[in-house]
């Protein structure tokens, strides 16, 4: 102890203090963007919540139907709200933790404006129906490329700042930032491998089971490395800073950081339990999720126990209140997640609103409240003033907390009620609720209550907006905050008793590389075998590529976002096969680029819908769902009945599919439209029999062709076997 003191004193004397400044302007820009997109994203969330109660709110308008704007909501809150929140927090804390201004102001600006442009592009393309259908990766390939570029700009700026730092060692927050940067880059690039058909249409490079595995490896780790690790980094900076308390345990930081990033990457398959994914991969997903409890809670413990000795302040300081409840929500969500990965629990929660409740405890609680806390801390600080009203901040806190409760509890209840109805059999051996719709109408009051929770939460954000506007008006902004620190000495002598981990804390490049290795292991072990080992996806001889018309219909299914409410994955449960037909097999999806298994059943599963209803049923049902099933909450799709199908794209689509492995014969693209026209005529004739006049070149015909094909290939196999 004594020795150290003398050393620091000596350093102080010999070192010249360098004067520099922190870039606050970029932090302010990101803060405003966070606010703006938060409000936009949550408002869209409230709208889609209400659409489930009042289907009329779909407005009978293509661009505002649930299937198209649900991705808008998820993308807006994840990448726009939380994304800007990450940049805000990182740009503020990184400069201070490294005692250095951001390396390049221009890059900072490119990062900011590039990111906003991407968001705007998303807000335009998603309602237009330009989507890849892969959850949280819906944006089409040109935007994917833009995301990759901007992300690299961010990483470069961050890394150069780290290299030019005036602080020898990297604080734990920065470990998290580095791991976030490299992992998100890997996830995004691997999952976005796609084959462009046109400027705004592409097909996933992977098919069926493989696509599902890659997608949920990505999807799960988007939660892990976009919503969790960067926010843990922010927690490690802002909690000790605001509470003015030392971090509880440095040792715990080390252990939980490495354990967390290593284990997280494996957990993706828990999104695919009881699906056509091979059993071994499912089991890995389960056990790695269970092992994640402790590393996740390590972060919670370090956050909460840092407040030891400051609990009296938590009672008075609204900012700390936000932080404490945020961490508590993090703890709850990261315990619940592993529990949901157990087979027996997942059987209940999967496809129901339970999952929705779970993610919102994380998103509203952990991400939302932590972001609000940071905003309440940063804005007054950068504007050199006090928060306009602590009372309003308190009001916001209670609105947000109550909002979360009113959101989550009805959704948990809805999940349980619906599962209970799905699985119930009568003594005669029939489904007690054979009509799926019965199990949906039961949930309407709960959906209403959930919307109320969302409304509370959103109104809290408006209270915050007012408070922040008032604070900004009262203060004076400091663009460039002056700071000084000694430059980093050329050589560094390791002093005795120093922990081994200090070594890597001095070496950002090694930290980056080592993180990359640690996060790659799980992904490689799970994904590679499904590509290389044939037995993982047993082929079925009768499964054939889609006809040109079906392929076009499938793209309409994707455009309208049907997969947001309808799964195409019948799990091997008696209550599912009784309702939907034979359970889904891996071999049935080999030509599905992308896979369309879905993750939520707001409507029934569609995997075996082919041949279940006549063409006329689908025609009428899409025109006016109420006419075929009274009380449904499905929106109408009348534009499909008038819009002309674009068949100029057929050739390009067939060629693209062949390039990624679908065995269309060479040259088939040139005659594909003839087959398409013939099949369309057949459907039109079928409709005529039921006194429906339809034009063969309308989109609805293609969609009907696709729906009638769904899940029927395997039946042909059976017929063959019987012969």
């Amino acid at each position, binding site marked *: *102890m004594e020795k150290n003191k003398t050393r620091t004193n000596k350093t102080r004397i010999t070192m010249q203090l360098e004067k520099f400044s922190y870039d606050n302007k970029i932090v302010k820009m990101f803060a405003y963007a966070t606010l703006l997109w938060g409000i936009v994203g949550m408002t869209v969330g409230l709208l889609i919540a209400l659409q489930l109660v009042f289907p009329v709110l779909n407005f009978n308008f293509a661009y505002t139907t649930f299937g198209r704007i649900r991705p808008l909501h998820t993308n807006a809150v994840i990448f726009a709200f939380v994304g800007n929140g990450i940049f805000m927090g990182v740009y503020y804390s990184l400069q*201070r*933790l490294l005692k250095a201004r951001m390396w390049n102001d221009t890059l900072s600006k490119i990062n900011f404006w590039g990111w906003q442009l991407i968001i705007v592009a998303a807000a335009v393309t998603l309602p237009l129906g330009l989507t890849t259908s892969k959850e949280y990766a819906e944006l089409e390939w040109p935007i994917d490329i833009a995301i990759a570029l901007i992300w690299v700009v961010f990483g470069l700026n961050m890394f150069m700042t780290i290299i030019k730092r005036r602080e020898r060692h990297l*604080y734990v927050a920065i470990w998290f930032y580095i791991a976030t940067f490299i992992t998100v880059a890997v996830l995004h690039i691997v999952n976005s491998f796609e084959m462009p058909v046109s400027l705004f249409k592409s097909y996933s490079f992977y098919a069926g089971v493989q696509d599902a595995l890659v997608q949920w490896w990505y999807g799960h780790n988007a939660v892990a490395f976009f919503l969790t690790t960067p926010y843990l980094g922010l927690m490690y*900076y802002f909690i*000790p800073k605001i509470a003015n308390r*030392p*971090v509880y*345990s*440095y*040792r*715990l*930081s080390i*252990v939980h950081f490495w354990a967390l990033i290593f284990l997280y990457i494996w957990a993706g398959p828990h999104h695919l339990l009881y699906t056509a994914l091979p*059993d071994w991969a499912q*089991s890995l997903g389960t*056990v790695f999720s*269970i*092992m994640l*409890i402790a590393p996740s*809670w390590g972060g919670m413990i370090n956050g909460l*126990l840092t407040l030891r000795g400051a*609990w009296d302040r938590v*009672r008075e300081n609204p900012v700390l209140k936000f932080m404490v*409840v945020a961490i*508590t929500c993090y703890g709850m969500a990261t315990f619940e997640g592993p529990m949901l990965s*157990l*087979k*027996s629990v997942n*059987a209940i929660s999967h496809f129901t609103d339970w999952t929705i409740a779970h993610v919102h405890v994380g998103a509203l609680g952990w991400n939302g409240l932590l972001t609000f806390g940071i905003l309440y801390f940063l804005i007054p600080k950068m504007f050199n003033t006090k928060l306009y009203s602590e009372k309003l901040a308190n009001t916001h806190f209670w609105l947000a*907390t*109550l909002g979360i*409760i*009113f959101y989550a*509890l009805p959704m948990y*209840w809805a999940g*349980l*009620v619906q599962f*209970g109805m799905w699985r119930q*059999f009568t*003594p*005669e*051996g*029939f489904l007690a609720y*054979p*009509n*799926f*719709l019965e199990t949906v109408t039961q949930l309407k*009051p709960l959906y209403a209550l959930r919307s109320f929770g969302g409304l509370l939460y959103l109104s809290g954000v408006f209270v915050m907006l007012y408070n922040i506007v008032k604070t900004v008006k009262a203060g004076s902004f400091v663009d460039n905050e002056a700071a000084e620190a000694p430059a980093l000495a050329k050589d560094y002598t390791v002093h005795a008793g120093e922990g081994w981990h200090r070594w890597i804390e001095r070496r950002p490049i090694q930290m980056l590389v080592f993180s990359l290795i640690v996060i790659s292991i799980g992904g490689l072990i799970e994904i590679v075998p499904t590509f290389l080992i044939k037995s993982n996806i047993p082929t079925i001889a009768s499964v054939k590529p889609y006809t040109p018309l079906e392929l076009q219909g499938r793209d309409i299914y994707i455009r309208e976002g049907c997969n947001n409410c309808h799964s195409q994955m019948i*799990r091997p*449960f*008696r*209550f599912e096969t*009784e309702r939907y037909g034979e359970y889904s097999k891996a071999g049935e999806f080999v030509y599905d680029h992308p896979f369309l298994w879905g993750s939520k059943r707001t409507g029934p599963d569609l995997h075996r819908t082919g041949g279940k*209803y*006549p063409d*006329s*049923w689908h025609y009428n049902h899409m025109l006016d769902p109420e006419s075929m*099933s009274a009380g449904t909450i499905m929106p109408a799709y009348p534009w499909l009945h008038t819009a002309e199908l674009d068949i100029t794209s057929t050739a390009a689509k067939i060629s693209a599919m062949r390039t990624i492995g679908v065995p269309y014969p060479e040259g088939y693209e040139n005659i594909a439209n003839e087959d398409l026209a013939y099949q369309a005529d057949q459907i039109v004739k079928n409709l005529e*029999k039921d006194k429906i006049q339809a034009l063969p070149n309308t989109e609805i015909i293609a969609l009907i062709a696709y729906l009638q094909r769904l899940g029927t290939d395997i039946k042909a196999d059976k017929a063959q076997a019987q012969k």
Partner: protein
Amino acid sequence: MNHIKNIFQKAVLSAFMFLVSGNLIAAETPQVPWRNLKFATETSTFWFLTGLALFLLVLIIVLAGVLKSIVSNKDLWLKKASGNKAASVIFIALMTLPASSAFAQAASPESAPLVVMTEDIFWVLVTVNFVLLSLLFAILLLIKNLLKSLKGEDVSEAAPVKQDIWAGALNAAVPVEREGEIMMDHEYDGIRELDNNLPPWWIWGFYFTIAFAGVYLTYYHITGKGDLMIAEYNKQMEEGRLQKEAYLAKAGAKVDENTVVAFTEAAQLDKGKETFKTYCAACHGQAGEGGVGPNFADEYWIHGGGIKNIFKTVKYGVPAKGMIAWEAQLTPVQIQEVSSYILTLKGTNPANAKEPQGELWSEGGAVPAAQPDSAVADSAKSPVAVNQ
């Protein structure tokens, strides 16, 4: 000793199996004592359990208020050196206060749509009550200790050994007062770090989950003892089949296309009529005049007339033409009733009757098409299935 060990092993094993297997979703298994409890599915049970939960919540809220008033007496707490640890515990207790009061508000509107009381919900409610009860006891204990220490009987001094064990097992932390001893010598933008031990409960928890992973993978993929999903599914289906058979045998409701006879009594025909209106009328008309599906009021039948053929057509359907196989939704007796009712429609001459389809049928006369799915009439249309 061995005996106890055995029981312990069995208990752990069965708890584990319950966790990992599809027990929760398997069809009712009568041999398991916690399944098929009669009272569990009664609505009154639901109200009782919900009421109990609400009552416990109110108690918790009141007691939490008491706790709060004790804690907020700052003068008392400043004097107590041990205040910090207690305060943090109390804070956590307080944090649950807003949550539980909101739950109380949320619970009553929520129950409004509830008409379905299932065993799953029963167990959820039981768990909720158990958790609430535990919370209540925890608060009571806390209040008791607080009052004791306020009276001057310092709890920590009274039972120092017990305290140490708990503190050791729970967090092994250096107390806030002595944290200078473990303060690291670095700081980042004013942030300092302590070097507290990893909490033992955390480490042991971590080890446990790792062990769980090992056991789980071994159980399912190395020993092969655990049922993977398809094996589990086959068992489920077999169980379902046996249950169904047992039920039908017991209820004396085993009717099939070979043994079926037409009902003639009004009561049964009325039931058949009701079934007809619910399931058949959409395609075959309210009065059986036909629509998307064929007319029932004439003497022509596509797949054969007479009770046996009609029963068969209803039961297995004609999937190629859109007629559903109703055996998945109607009991054999219901099919018998509705088929009998259909027979009574002959010659009723309903309005807007569809043209005759198929062949003229007379009992014992024309030979009906043997296969329900063989194409008979070219004019056959795809009837609309109303049901999902």
